[in-house]
């Protein structure tokens, strides 16, 4: 009796065997077992077709779910179903202060005999050219900027945001006869936060009104001028408008104007200095005439925030978390998910409640952000993030954005290598070790909040840097950058958040040099091996001998890893040997083999550049 044919297998041979089993049960044909038979040709054909069907069904099923999809447009589509829009390419942004001096040539009366205009205006699309070491980038003004003129004919523009990229525009005309009309912007690399949409509702009246980007349906009325933006195929973006119930519906013939920026992503991060930005464009006065002056940039924040388009694995990781956050910040992971939406150029986020502090501060949430480029986000960016978080936070909760407490880890390594089995010299071996350690530093194990630098891992990593390395003697050391307040009486607290070695024969804490106000001598401090717990101040005399100036310059708590300077008697520092008004304070952990951990808002950063690595030829041994 013939049974049912099972064609659900994915493997060709299994499907074929199922067909053969069926034929065996019929007793009508016998040649199914022989490769050359016609029956075998037919069986192979059916099996192949069944296998193709199974494979296709399997792939279609995979692509139907967020966690298993691999094709970007399917992942994006699945994420859309839970309300997640993948982060677009984001432009690096900088905030500029600049002045336009109309009286630069001293002929203000000739230019404006009838009196000064009330204000100067810069239209969207004008830009600054910024130079980095790699290339030149355009930083665009995307919203109209105006500044009033003072009596001297100077207009001061303050805190103007400029965004890197090419400023483009498009126009669509709403056509009600076209039921399939879509408003797709056919450019990849768009920063959707720079989208500016205006609509001319009556084709005969040359007035257009701005539409704002909406994220959901909450608080929308039939009159709300809103649009939605979604990623569609080929990394393009599609605009959709309201249906007349949620958001205003476009009338037939309405003209949609879209301005946007195509960004270079993270390439333009890190451009610093007012002199790097040069204006290219025109400035209009109150009367609409072009002003024959170029602005002078007086200050510029370091460009930051540029990121690439979010990749598939990131979408799969973040979309469920964004959905779990439900557009509100309650738990710390909610903050993590929403901050990454607001400001994509985030390396890591650490959020904790004020009740966790040593002296609890209830009703406060502390947010620590480590950006992808640089160590800290600018104050302007902090304000932007805080303002945007207002919509998500629980009422009565106060948000405080903090800079990460960066703890640098350095190594003191002596690497032994067998010169019999390598062509490399000492410097090449050191370079190999540095490269390998840099890879380790970039890994997510160390560089994050709550990260750990494991001693054994470092030793193993150095050993693996080259085949000729036989062993290494390595000590980890910690470093904090003490940022000083120049020429200001101050006391300082430096927390390593890791225990410091107390039992060594020499010093465990030491600093780089600095000068006090009104004193040209270079001073240093270190802990006193003869009087543990005290920090002493010293300088070197002309014979390079150490002269102790103050035996009680500060204190050190070895267990907590905490150093207090000038607690009883504040001091004023004029300058430092290290650039950027920084005194580098180094210490050794309590045990040579101790792992160094980051707790709370401490962010570990493995600093290979400032590590001391040396290589020595191994003698008296046959190698590893």
């Amino acid at each position: 009796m013939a049974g049912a044919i099972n064609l659900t297998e994915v493997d060709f041979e299994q499907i074929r065997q199922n067909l053969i089993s069926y034929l065996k049960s019929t007793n009508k044909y016998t040649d199914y077992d022989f490769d050359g038979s016609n029956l075998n040709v037919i069986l192979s054909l059916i099996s192949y077709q069944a296998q193709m069907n199974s494979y296709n069904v399997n792939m279609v099923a995979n692509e139907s779910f967020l966690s298993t999809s691999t094709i970007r447009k399917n992942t994006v589509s699945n994420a859309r179903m839970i309300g997640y829009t993948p982060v677009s390419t984001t432009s690096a942004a900088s905030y500029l202060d600049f002045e336009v001096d109309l009286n630069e040539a001293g002929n203000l009366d000739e230019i404006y005999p009838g009196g000064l205009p009330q204000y100067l205006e810069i239209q969207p699309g004008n830009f600054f050219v910024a130079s980095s070491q790699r290339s030149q980038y355009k930083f665009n003004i995307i919203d109209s900027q105006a500044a009033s003129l003072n009596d001297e004919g100077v207009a001061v523009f303050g805190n103007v945001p400029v965004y890197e990229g090419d400023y483009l525009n498009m126009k669509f005309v709403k056509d009600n006869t076209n039921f399939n009309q879509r408003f797709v912007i056919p450019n990849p690399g768009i920063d959707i936060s720079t989208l500016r949409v205006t609509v001319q509702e009556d084709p005969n009246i040359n007035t257009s009104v701005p539409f704002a980007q909406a994220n959901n349906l909450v608080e929308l009325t039939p009159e709300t001028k809103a649009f939605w933006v979604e990623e569609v195929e080929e990394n393009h973006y599609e605009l959709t408008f309201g249906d007349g119930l949620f958001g205003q519906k476009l009338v037939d013939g309405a003209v949609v104007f879209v301005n946007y920026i195509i960004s270079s992503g993270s390439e333009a991060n890190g451009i610093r200095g007012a002199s790097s930005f040069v204006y290219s464009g025109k400035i209009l006065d109150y009367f609409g005439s072009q002003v024959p002056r170029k602005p002078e940039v007086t200050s510029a924040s370091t460009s930051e925030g540029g990121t690439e388009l979010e990749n598939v694995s990131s979408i799969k990781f973040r979309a469920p978390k964004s959905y779990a956050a439900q557009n509100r910040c309650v738990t710390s992971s909610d903050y993590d998910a929403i901050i990454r939406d607001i400001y994509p150029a985030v390396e890591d986020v650490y959020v904790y409640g004020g009740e966790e502090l040593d002296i609890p501060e209830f009703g406060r949430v502390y947010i620590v952000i480590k950006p992808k480029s640089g160590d800290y986000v600018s104050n302007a960016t902090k304000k932007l993030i805080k303002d945007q978080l207002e919509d998500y936070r629980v009422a009565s909760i106060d948000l405080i954005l903090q800079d990460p407490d960066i703890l640098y880890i350095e190594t003191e390594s002596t690497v032994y290598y067998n010169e019999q089995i390598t062509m490399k010299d000492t410097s090449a071996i050191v370079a190999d070790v540095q490269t390998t350690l840099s890879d380790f530093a970039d890994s997510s194990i160390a560089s994050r909040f709550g990260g750990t630098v494991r001693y054994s891992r470092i030793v193993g990593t150095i050993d693996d840097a080259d085949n000729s390395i036989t062993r290494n003697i390595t000590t980890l050391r910690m470093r904090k950058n003490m940022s000083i307040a120049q020429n200001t009486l101050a006391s300082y607290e430096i927390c390593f958040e890791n225990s410091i070695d107390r039992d060594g024969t020499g010093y465990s804490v030491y600093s780089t040099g600095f000068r006090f106000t009104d004193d040209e001598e270079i001073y240093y401090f270190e802990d006193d091996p003869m009087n543990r717990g005290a920090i002493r101040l010293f300088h070197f005399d002309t014979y390079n001998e150490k002269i102790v100036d103050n035996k009680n310059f500060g204190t050190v708590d070895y267990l907590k890893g905490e150093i207090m300077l000038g607690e009883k008697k504040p001091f004023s520092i004029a300058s430092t040997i290290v650039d950027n008004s920084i005194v580098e304070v180094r210490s050794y952990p309590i045990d040579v083999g101790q792992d160094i951990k980051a707790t709370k808002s401490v962010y570990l950063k493995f600093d290979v550049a400032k590590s001391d690595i040396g290589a020595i030829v191994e003698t008296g041994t046959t190698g590893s």
Partner: protein
Amino acid sequence: MTQLSRKDKMFVDVSLSFEPNPVTGDITTLIDQRAINNAIKNAVLTAPKEAPFNPNFGSNINNMLFELSDDSTAVILEDEIRRSIKFNEPRVTNLSVKVVAQPDQNNIRATIVYKIIGFDQFVTFDQILSPTN
């Protein structure tokens, strides 16, 4: 692949002409000698890797298409046809293959003589190999 030592059953295959039997209306069947002749033909005229997931099935005679039509080509073809049948058709024994080039007709004539395992009589199978087949 099934190994046979004696005739214990009939060999029944379908015909790929898919023409119905005029009496029963069933699809035409090929039995014993016709089934095996057809299997040999399939084995010889199929190129390796042509059958899905069975890359070793078939013979390389198609590669000889542009060779000279002479006795040396005929010898190579004999070897290849013999190898192909031995490898792919376990029901056949006492195999003899004779290939004769017919350059004037642009043909090659292959005569295959074999015995079906379990059967007593020899079977002769003639196939004309022409460029169009």
